């Protein structure tokens, strides 16, 4: 049984990585939000499975928080923001997509190498997952760098949080409850502030293109 659960968690980790790749190759903002929601749902499933396999009831609570926050609240919020700002289409990346994918593959190899010595030491049931979590973090990081628009940057930021959360669940069976609550609160407040900012930026610059935000340079 534990064997099966371990395999399932590995499968979910693989899905998570695939979704990260789908996100860096996606041009449409609406699809990005769908992918982000799917990533959140995968994370919830993985957390519940780890909780079931290791008999850690507090993981169910943290899965519940993730479900509320990352599968329901934040996607809803993002949908509202893009409807009100009318930016459902977005076709710009700074580097072309095939190039991004190749860099992404390199990042995954790098992440796996970095996590290799630690995965060996891990007592957790899903050993390879730390590398995948790190790869997800790095891929989201790259997504933030290669997108010139504000909304994809925000989604990249959130997806990075997903990767970190997955690392916490798979490597250590979740952080202590009080820390997890604190992190969830920070993420929620952060996304609210970013949402408000999007409207201010739009108001001031008539655009959500971050390349307008380059006035403050050293001269």
């Amino acid at each position, binding site marked *: 049984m534990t064997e099966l659960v371990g395999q399932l968690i590995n499968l979910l980790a693989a899905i998570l990585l695939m979704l990260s790749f789908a996100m860096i190759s996606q041009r449409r903002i609406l699809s990005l939000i769908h992918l982000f929601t799917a990533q959140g749902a995968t994370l919830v499933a993985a957390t519940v499975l780890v909780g079931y396999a290791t008999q*850690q009831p507090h993981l169910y609570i943290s899965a519940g928080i993730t479900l509320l926050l990352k599968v329901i609240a934040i996607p809803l919020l993002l949908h509202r923001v893009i409807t009100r700002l009318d930016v459902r289409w977005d076709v710009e990346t700074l580097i072309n997509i095939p190039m991004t994918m190749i860099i992404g593959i390199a990042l995954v190899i790098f992440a796996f190498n*970095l996590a290799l*010595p*630690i995965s060996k*030491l*891990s*007592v957790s049931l899903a050993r390879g997952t730390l590398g995948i979590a*790190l790869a997800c*973090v790095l891929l989201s*990081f790259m997504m*933030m760098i290669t997108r010139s628009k*504000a909304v994809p*940057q925000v989604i990249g*930021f959130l997806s*990075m*949080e997903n990767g*970190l959360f997955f*690392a*916490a669940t798979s*490597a*250590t*069976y979740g*952080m*202590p409850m*009080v*820390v997890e609550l*604190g*992190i969830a*609160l*920070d993420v929620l*407040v*952060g996304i609210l*502030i*970013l949402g408000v*900012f999007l409207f*201010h*930026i739009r108001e*001031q*610059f008539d655009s959500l293109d*971050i390349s307008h*935000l*380059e*006035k*403050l340079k*050293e*001269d």
Partner: protein
Amino acid sequence: MATLFFVLGIPLLGSFVLALSGHRDAGREINVAFSLGTFVATCVLTTEVIAGGPLFAWNREFYIDPLNVFLVTLTAFVGLTTAIFSRPYMRVERDHGKMTPNRMRLYHSMYQLFSFTMLIALTTNNLGILWVAMEAATLTTVLLVSVYRTPASLEAAWKYFILCGVGIAQALFGTVLLYMAAEKVIGTEGGALLWTNLDAVKAQLDPAIITLAFAFLFIGYGTKVGLVPMHNWLPDAHAEGPTPVSAVLSGLLLNVAVYALLRCKVLTDGALHSQLAGQLMIAFGLLSVLVAAFFLSRQKDVKRMFAYSSIEHMGLITFAFGIGGPIANYAGLLHMTVHSLIKSGIFFAVGHATQKAGTQNMADIRGLIKVSPTVGWGLMLGSLAILGMPPFGVFASEFLILTTAMREQPWATPFLLLALGVAFAAVFSRVQPMVFGETSVRPLAHPPALLPVFAHLGLGLMLGLYIPPYLDDWYRQAARMMGG
């Protein structure tokens, strides 16, 4: 324990009260009152710790020892003086139409919430909560930086949010790894993220995991310290926000980030039996000092220039702690104190000067001393103090850092001296015409608050000439605790 409740409770209550009433004229006074309350509570806490030694509170979730108690007091003190300074400053901003009642409310409420997050970060024993508090501090200061809603301030705040958000996410990954290493030794039930527990078993932590964990923690908290090359957010955030916010960013937030780094370094040193953490801090500290010194000379905006000076000093502090040992640690702590006092004092003077001149461009600010001798002298003396002129405290700490560097890391000394020389030339040549020369500034309707400027400079001067025995004792204990 009750005192700690007040230390944390007063600013939290203050943020709620000011969220309701901060838009009124009395909001500025209420802000000062709450800051004063926090400061009094921290003073009581300090005397308790001096009398009774380190103390735990609330199920060991909070821990006060010599290292953080002096930072707690410093934080509350600078919080108080900045609140006093912000009273006339914000009145002028309101008269200029830059602050509407709603912005005033947001500003005051976030100011108190920021103090709250800083104090939580300093007093918590839980490294996870430390991370949460640092992130919360980022969020509150993002709102403070963007309070004017100008394009430039929005840009600065966005950059700050994204860069620090990404940076601090790395620190979270590092914390997860640390927890993973600790879990093996302590188990899931034993509070494996409590710093004191980790400190007790640090020699048994797995070196492979800790190495990686420290790398991530260093990038994460190093971003908040403003170390080169993760420093890009710092000058923008300092220059575009209100000046009281620049003062607390430089005076408090950077210190707390250094504190977080130090806690992690102590654990890493214990686990690795090597100098990895120290070497990383020496390298990045020195790089920051050098790069910041050369950027200093290219600045036109007075607040940007002093922001780069903050990067330089943070680099110096990181370098000192990187060398380690009782003397360098002592010097690092002293430098943290005097830099925090003097830099926020400078920002107070700069705040009044830029309001008088109506610009932050240094070329347009001339002859401050003719219009307002006190602001002029405050800026001049503050600049001399921060550049390391005797008899101010910065001289004492820089002298200690340099002499230790000569003994421990002789190759670094020429670079340090070069950077300090370049910084001196850059800052002095800019400040001198601003203070003296033909005047272009006009008097303001509201008298500036000069008490904070001279209180800070006076304390900086005192620390250069005479360190009170109890403070000396604190520094020594803290320096020993960090593996002296």
